[in-house]
């Protein structure tokens, strides 16, 4: 198992009640798989963007132990 830190925003943050959660995931998990481990229902259906260690990443990128991961729901700036 790997331990990673996950940063959450907006409705994802509200759903978990935390800006950052620390979770254990299986070695070889992709960002998308980590997301689906954390969220279900309507939140799982959102078109999420991913970041890994403060850089944009692909949903298929594999996480490593100690990663700082972020899930970005659809943006609303402006």
């Amino acid at each position, binding site marked *: 198992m790997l331990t990673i830190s996950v940063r959450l925003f*907006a409705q994802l943050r509200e759903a978990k009640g935390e800006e950052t959660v620390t979770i254990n995931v299986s070695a070889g998990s992709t960002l998308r798989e980590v997301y689906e481990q954390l969220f279900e229902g309507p939140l799982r259906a959102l078109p999420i963007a991913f970041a890994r260690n403060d850089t944009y990443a692909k949903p298929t990128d594999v996480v490593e132990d100690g990663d700082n991961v*972020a899930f*970005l729901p659809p*943006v*609303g*700036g*402006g």
Partner: protein
Amino acid sequence: MLGLTDGPIDVATVRNAVDDPGFGAILVFEGVARNNFDGRRVTHLSYEAYEELAVPVLQAIAKECFENFGAKCAIVHRTGPVPIEDPTVVIAVGTPHRPACYDASRYALEALKARLPVWKKEVYDDGHDWKRNQVPDE
């Protein structure tokens, strides 16, 4: 000047960041907190941002404005609660001639709405919504 601020945006400071004696046109766009949405009264807005990614996105947009339109560009987006009538974002653009100024300003605004990792909470008397931007190519 490209960044976020958790207090009121000083519009003149953003505008002055694009001053240049070779510019004949300056355009300052302010997104402003509006008091209504679909007939519902909005009490205020609140923004949160992923600052570590937002600043590089703003830098990329400014670079694109320069490369595509020869424009100098300054952008400041507010975070946290924003009262009605306060600016939520200010985009200042300067160019030698006016057509490029409008094109660059609009480009920066649409790019920001599509790409900037910032989230808007619209707060009503009886609840709130996280508002997703409509992106033209969706």
